[in-house]
């Protein structure tokens, strides 16, 4: 339903989806903040249940170089799915040239779509390399950023530093580097 007038050079609808507790809304805030640092027009919305963990959760980030109005993503340029449920629900709404990134730790089946798909076990990687599944959000977000080039690394780094609590910054910057490295290595496999 995108309104792309001729002068719009840049309009990206991004959805980060999974379940409550996976840090998707935090990731959405970091992504939106990074865009603000670059002077990009951005709106970030979210949907979650009343429980603090479990239940479907998602964060939408819309970026554009011109004014836009509707604050939720309806068809996606970039879709990140950290659960099977999210993938089943949202993958059909990818744009034709939209990119799907899934956490293969939890997403086992991807319905037939003709989109570019990146599959990596982000949750397992977080557990193995950082001893915690908490930074899964930052690893997958950093992977997304590097692969799509949607914002620069400097802005992402700054956004992580200003969003996370002081005691979590180091681990999340490590997670960012892991995400970037995964993206670079994924590239060489292509």
């Amino acid at each position, binding site marked *: *339903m995108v*309104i792309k*007038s001729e002068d719009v050079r840049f309009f990206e609808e991004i959805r980060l989806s999974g379940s409550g507790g996976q840090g998707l809304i935090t990731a959405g*805030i970091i992504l*939106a*903040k990074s*865009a*603000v640092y670059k*002077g990009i*027009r*951005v*709106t*970030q*919305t*979210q*949907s*979650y*249940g*009343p429980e603090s963990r479990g239940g479907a959760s998602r964060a939408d980030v819309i970026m554009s170089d011109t004014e*836009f*109005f*509707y*604050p*939720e993503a*309806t068809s996606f340029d970039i879709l990140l799915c950290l659960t099977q449920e999210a993938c089943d629900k949202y993958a059909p709404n990818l744009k034709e040239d939209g990119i799907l990134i899934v956490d293969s730790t939890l997403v086992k089946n991807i319905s037939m779509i003709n989109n570019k798909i990146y599959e990596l076990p982000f949750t397992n990687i977080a557990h193995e390399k950082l001893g915690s599944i908490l930074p899964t959000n930052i690893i997958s977000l950093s992977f997304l950023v590097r692969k799509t080039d949607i914002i620069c690394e400097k802005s992402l780094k700054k956004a992580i530093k200003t969003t996370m609590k002081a005691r979590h910054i180091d681990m999340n910057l490590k997670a960012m580097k892991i995400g970037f490295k995964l993206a670079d290595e994924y590239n060489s496999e292509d």
Partner: protein
Amino acid sequence: MTKKNKEKEMVLLQGNQAIAYGALAAGVNFFAGYPITPSTEIAEILSLELPKRGGSFIQMEDEIASISAIIGGSLAGAKTMTATSGPGFSLMQEGIGFARMTETPCVVVNVMRAGPSTGLPTNPSQGDIMQSRWGTHGDSPAIVLYPNSVKESFELTIRAVNLAEKYRTCVVLLSDEVLGHMREAVMLPDLDDVNIVKRIKPNVPPEWYKHYKNNPKYRTPVANFGEGYRFHVTGLAHDELGFPTNKSEEVDEMMDRLDNKIKHHVDDLIQIESFMMDDATTAILAVGITSRAAKAAVLMARKLGKRVGLIRPLTIWPFPNDIIRKYFSEVKTIIVAELNQGQLYLVIKRIMAYKKKRRIVPLLRNDGELITPQQILDVILEGK
């Protein structure tokens, strides 16, 4: 963008954050509340920020106590606010009536979630459009504002505080779950540039002071408790000194004042946005978050060559009847889009009743999700 602004940084702000910062910018120095999703961030931020600035934050035992506390705070001279959502807003109705009756300035923020009862705490709704007008018993006018962006949440909070002071009443600021939790890049103005309405102090000796003096300008000088002026505050019908009365002429005068101070200043109170209405044959009426979908739908329809426009009141109450009649005088179809069972739809049907040949189509959604631009576009296309 001016040069001065360019040097200022854009910040990513949440709707609720913007309301909290708007309150601080407007000079709110006392907040009493009972946190409730999806309004909690407002209380959370003010609990941190008010003490830093010499203000006070108090978490009360419930919403009735919260509104009572802000009325008391206001009578003592503070600029006061509380924030809640549907279930708490229901409990505050009694206090809202008391604030209107006692002409005590205060602001109640209601970040709407889906109801009835506890409903869907984390989903949006526009179910309190009518409650914000008629929720309290008796009959008195209301001032209710409803923004549609983070930037406007900041601006209308300041306006709500100012209007409360100016008109000596409880002003309601509506928001909703999506708007309250949405983040957008905004540039906040310098605090020096914010226009703040101050109370006019009485210049008569204390023994001549009348707290409820009828003033043709409706801006009566007001003393605060503790300043040496004596006045009585009661929810009972009262005379100019505030003492209970049941003399019909005094009651009549009081009720007229409550009514006229709003009715005679509709021009000052009304804010309305019209979007692509010049040649429109179909008009959408939407407020708050739904107006964002409507605006997107207008652009989609225009690309298909349809003459569609949008009318969005920022002041919901008093409802801009006359202005809307003018805008809608030439259109053939009016689509009223809202997240409830048809509250503004009834208003539009009533004010447009004098024109018989006019299609008025409700587009309602009650499942806790937003109306999408596509849904509105579908209704626009059906109508042709």
